[in-house]
C-alpha cells in the first residue's frame, strides 16, 4: 500500500480538467451567439435604445463606399439585389460603417428601393449608455 501512494499523487486530475472545460463550453454556448463574421476594420453605427436582433448577414458598406456581401465585393446595389433569393427581397438590411457619408447611405438606399426593395433597414451595434 505504501508503494502505491506516491504513484497516485502523480496522476493527472482528469475529472477536474473535464469539469473546467465543460463549464467553459457551457458558458460560450449560452452567452455567445453564432453569426457571420464581419470585417474587423468595420466600425458600426452605435445606438442605445433600440430592440436587439440576430447578428446581421447583410450588405456591408465601407467608409469609402465599397460594398461587400459575405466577403465578396459587390459592384453596385442593383447587382447585389439581383443575387438575393426571392424570399429575402422585401426587406433589405445594410450594415454601414459609422463614418460613411450620410448622403452615400441615402443614395444607396434609393438604389435598393428603385431595384424593388420594400424596406431598407440599417443594422447598428447596440451599446450601453
Amino acid at each position, binding site marked *: 500500500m505504501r508503494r502505491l501512494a506516491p504513484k497516485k499523487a502523480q496522476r493527472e486530475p482528469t475529472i477536474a480538467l473535464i469539469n473546467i472545460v465543460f463549464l467553459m463550453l457551457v458558458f460560450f454556448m449560452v452567452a*455567445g451567439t453564432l453569426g457571420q463574421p464581419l470585417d474587423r476594420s468595420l466600425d458600426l453605427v452605435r445606438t442605445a435604445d433600440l430592440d436587439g436582433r440576430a447578428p446581421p448577414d447583410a450588405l456591408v458598406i465601407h467608409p469609402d463606399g465599397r460594398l461587400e456581401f459575405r466577403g465578396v465585393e459587390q459592384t453596385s446595389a442593383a447587382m447585389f439585389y439581383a443575387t438575393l433569393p426571392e424570399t429575402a427581397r422585401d426587406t433589405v438590411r445594410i450594415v454601414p460603417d459609422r463614418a460613411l457619408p450620410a448622403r452615400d447611405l441615402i443614395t444607396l438606399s434609393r438604389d435598393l428601393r428603385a431595384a424593388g426593395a420594400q424596406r431598407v433597414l440599417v443594422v447598428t451595434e447596440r451599446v450601453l449608455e
Partner: protein
Amino acid sequence: MTSLIDVIFLLLLFFMLTSTFSKFAEIELSSALQGTATVNEPPLFLQLGAETVRLNGNALDMATLDASPLGSAAEGTVLLVSLAGDVNAQRLTDLLVALRGLPALRVSVLGS
C-alpha cells in the same frame, strides 16, 4: 476518457471562435414617401448638420425634439430632412432614433 476530453475540447474551441458577443439592432431608413399624401398640414423642413439641427430655420437641440414644433405636429405631417455634406451615417442614425419617438411624423430624407 481521453477521447471524451478531445471532443469537448473541440466543441469548446468551435464555440469560442465562432460566437460573437456584440449585440445588434436595426432601424428603418426611410428614403421615399410611402402612401398617398392626403395631409393638409404644410411639411416641416429639418436641416441636419454635423453639429447643428435646424427646423424651418430655427436651431434645435436633438435631445429635446419633443418640446419643439415637431412634438406637436399633426398626425401624418411630412418631415423633410436635408443633409449637410459633412454628416455621416452615425449622425443620421442618431436623428432617426430620436425621431422614432415621434410617430406622428412621416420622415423623408432627401438625397443629394
